[in-house]
């Protein structure tokens, strides 16, 4: 008989993310509502985040303070930066012949 272990997915609560990023939970909630942060809602209506949320929140703040972008623009910039990361990784893996 195979045994199945209950594995808790790695996810962070709204409060944890807020503490780790030094932001007010309401602001984090607002970022989630603006879809700047990926989040899931459980049956009780609680918000859950991926561990990368803290790094993304830092990036959001840097983009906002450094380039005075509004939140709509930040969403676009985050998406574009992610796409560039993927493309650059592809270019790197294709350049195998030295």
């Amino acid at each position, binding site marked *: 008989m195979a045994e199945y272990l209950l594995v808790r997915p790695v996810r962070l609560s709204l409060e944890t993310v807020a503490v780790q990023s*030094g932001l007010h939970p309401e602001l984090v909630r607002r970022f989630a509502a603006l879809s700047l942060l990926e989040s899931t809602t459980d049956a009780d209506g609680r918000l859950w985040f991926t561990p990368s949320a803290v790094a993304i929140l*830092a990036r959001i*703040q840097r983009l906002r*303070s450094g*380039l*005075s972008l509004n939140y709509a623009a930040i969403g676009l910039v985050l998406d574009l930066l992610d796409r560039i990361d993927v493309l650059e990784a592809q270019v790197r893996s294709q350049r*195998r012949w*030295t």
Partner: protein
Amino acid sequence: MATDFYDALGVARTASADEIQRAYRKLAREYHPDVNADPGAEERFKEISEAYQVLSDPDQRKKYDRFGADFRRVPDDFDERAHAGGGGRVRYAQGGRQGGQGFGGGFEGIDIEDLLGGFFRGRGGPVAGADQEAELELTVDEAYRGGRRHLTLAGAAERGYDVTIPPGVLDGQRIRLAGQGGTGSGNAAPGDLYLVVRVKPHPRYRLSGRDIHVDLPVSPWEAVLGATVPVTTPGGEVKVRVTPGSSTGRRLRLRGEGMPNPKGKPGDLYAEVRVMVPKKPRKRERELFEELAAVSDFDPRSS
């Protein structure tokens, strides 16, 4: 900061407020640490932000023009004191930060304080630093052997690292130096510094993943009769047996002689036979080739 604010933004001392704003916006987009992972970018970004903070404020700009780098130490009421001989302080209106003015609206009323504040001075809570990326150029031999290497990253504050390179790193692989990236504000964690490995092209070795390809030049008689010839590889010289009847293009595989692999099987080394002929055969050699030509019925184009 040592750099002149006008130089930092690349504008003339006579530049208009518009020109200053244009130069700043352009540079800020280019050097923002989330857009530009270069280790020098963050420093440059701070420099242009500081320059803009001063030059976009008419009062501060006037002061900077007059007193240069020490302008901050000059009291606000310098002129009053000078004229009044120290007495009769006149209070300048403090408020009215030039904030919204330079931004032409549309930016949710962010003022310059906001622009710099949270990011560098720790206001508005700690923000973790951005990750940075730098290239680490290695020769094929260095990538093969690995080992320690001292690396300096240029910039106003030059940084030096002793990096341990694992043997068998490949082009494009990233070495992570935790906590060596952009500085966080407040007591937030710094970002990481990633060194992206670039393996320099080698005149003899060509890399394909972990496999190394190398040409194996042989004489016509070695190719026909077979021979054991030495080949230099990154791991040292090895002897390769060329089987009799090897034409150009035949590949000899030396199992495990390619790039080492810290996590498993090393790559292979492929030596590719290339038949070379003497450019200027001596008289006797020529005679023998002529004799061979007369005797042989080998036709390389027959198949």
